[in-house]
């Protein structure tokens, strides 16, 4: 999330896909978009993120179907790229049975007061930190090697179809040492010492029926967002619904009850408003029976709340009215921080959709891309 702004500025969408990355540069009205790409054609790009502290450094989490993972860096907003010298990698185990990073899934720039600091979440679940702008990465042993955390992570067999993931690394804008992260599976966790230790934050959340709600193993947070306008407020899209947490409370509150029964409150993305902590958006998917993971009924829609989750309103103007069976992954929906907030999402069928009026109207700005894994907004002050 970029810092909130009062005046309009340049907007670029950073689109990460299963076959490469694209940048879409908006005109001043965000009506036309100039495409720049593909970058890394053929690479699986899980996340492409701008460093808001300098407005020009981009990091891309990459791998291919047959080569190991790496991180690519650009210090000139994507004109030139160089590979990290030491990508995220687990500590080597003496017995040779240690874990290996399959791919870096999530990238988060560090606190504004710590230029050069980045965090990465991987599959299988691992947390990594860089202090040199993403050139070299060190494992956070409090998560990666802790026996309790390893137990909560489970095995690759316990994870999602593309592998278990550590994601939603959130830094408190008021305190660089205060952070959150989430694991699918393995629950939500909080640190007050810059990641040297963590503790679960799962009270009030639901798990699949029949499992122990007190065991982090069975918790599956899909996406967590912290409100820029109120860093004490967190929203969560979870395997079992929508939740909100207002610190210093430690008990999550279910806020999905206001969603229509025929849509439900299962999904992956969670988007918060840059200036209004009561406003948030979700993109529900079909989580019934065998989990088709399509738009419910083939009718895609965004849902918005303006009152912290008490009520949800459908926003589908411009979206296909029927027979559209795509969905949106957890990193593939985001908001800008323009005076009239823009919303953007990428679909599993390679379409990129935009709204410049907070979701009231939607238009498709790109088609025929590969399966979209992540969409981020870059709003550099100057390039």
């Amino acid at each position: 999330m970029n810092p909130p702004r009062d005046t309009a500025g340049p907007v670029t969408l950073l689109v990460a896909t299963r076959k490469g990355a694209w940048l879409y540069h908006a005109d001043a009205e965000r009506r036309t978009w100039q495409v720049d790409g593909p970058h890394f054609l053929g690479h699986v790009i899980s996340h492409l993120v701008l460093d808001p502290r300098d407005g020009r450094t981009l990091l891309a989490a990459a791998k291919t179907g047959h080569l190991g993972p790496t991180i690519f860096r650009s210090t000139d907003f994507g004109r030139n790229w160089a590979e990290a010298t030491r990508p995220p990698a687990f500590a080597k185990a003496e017995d040779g049975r240690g874990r290996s990073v399959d791919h870096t899934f999530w990238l988060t720039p560090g606190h504004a007061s710590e230029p050069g600091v980045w965090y990465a979440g991987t599959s299988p679940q691992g947390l990594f930190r860089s202090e040199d702008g993403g050139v070299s990465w060190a494992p956070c042993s409090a998560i990666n090697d802790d026996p309790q955390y390893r137990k909560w992570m489970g095995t690759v067999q316990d994870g999602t179809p593309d592998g278990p993931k550590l994601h939603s690394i959130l830094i408190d804008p008021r305190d660089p040492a205060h952070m959150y992260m989430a694991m699918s599976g393995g629950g939500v966790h909080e640190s007050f010492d810059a990641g040297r230790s963590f503790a679960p934050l799962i009270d009030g959340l639901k798990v699949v029926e029949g499992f122990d709600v007190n065991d982090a193993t069975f918790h599956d947070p899909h996406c967590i967002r912290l409100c820029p306008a109120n860093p004490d407020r967190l929203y969560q899209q979870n395997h079992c619904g929508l939740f909100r947490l207002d610190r210093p409370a430690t008990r999550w509150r279910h806020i999905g009850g206001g969603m229509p029964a025929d849509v439900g409150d299962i999904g992956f993305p969670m988007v918060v408003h840059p200036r209004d902590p009561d406003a948030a958006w979700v993109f529900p998917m079909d989580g019934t029976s065998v989990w088709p993971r399509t738009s419910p009924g083939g009718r895609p829609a965004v849902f918005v709340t303006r009152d912290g989750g008490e009520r949800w309103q459908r926003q589908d103007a411009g979206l296909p009215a029927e027979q559209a069976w795509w969905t949106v992954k957890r990193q593939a929906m985001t908001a800008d921080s323009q005076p009239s907030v823009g919303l953007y999402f990428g679909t599993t069928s390679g379409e990129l959709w935009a709204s410049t009026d907070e979701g009231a109207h939607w238009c498709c700005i790109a088609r025929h891309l590969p399966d979209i894994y992540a969409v981020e907004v870059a709003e550099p002050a100057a390039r």
Partner: protein
Amino acid sequence: MKVLIPGALRSYTDSAQAEADGATLAEVVTALDLQYPGIAFRMVDEQGRIRRHIRFFVDGQPVHDLGRPADPQGELVIVQALSGG
């Protein structure tokens, strides 16, 4: 020893062929990485295991143990299996 590089890794070497030496195949891979930084981690994971879709052949024979002695006169062929659609 002579090392034949698969197409997917030629962004590192700019060539289909390289030279690297060491007492073992692991040392050959390390020597290759010194010449072409980053290439080793794309083939061998942090636990020293050859990645799932990478195969090493020495003088025509498949090799799974990177601790095997390396012959300076031998030839290492690195093959990458394509996966996914």
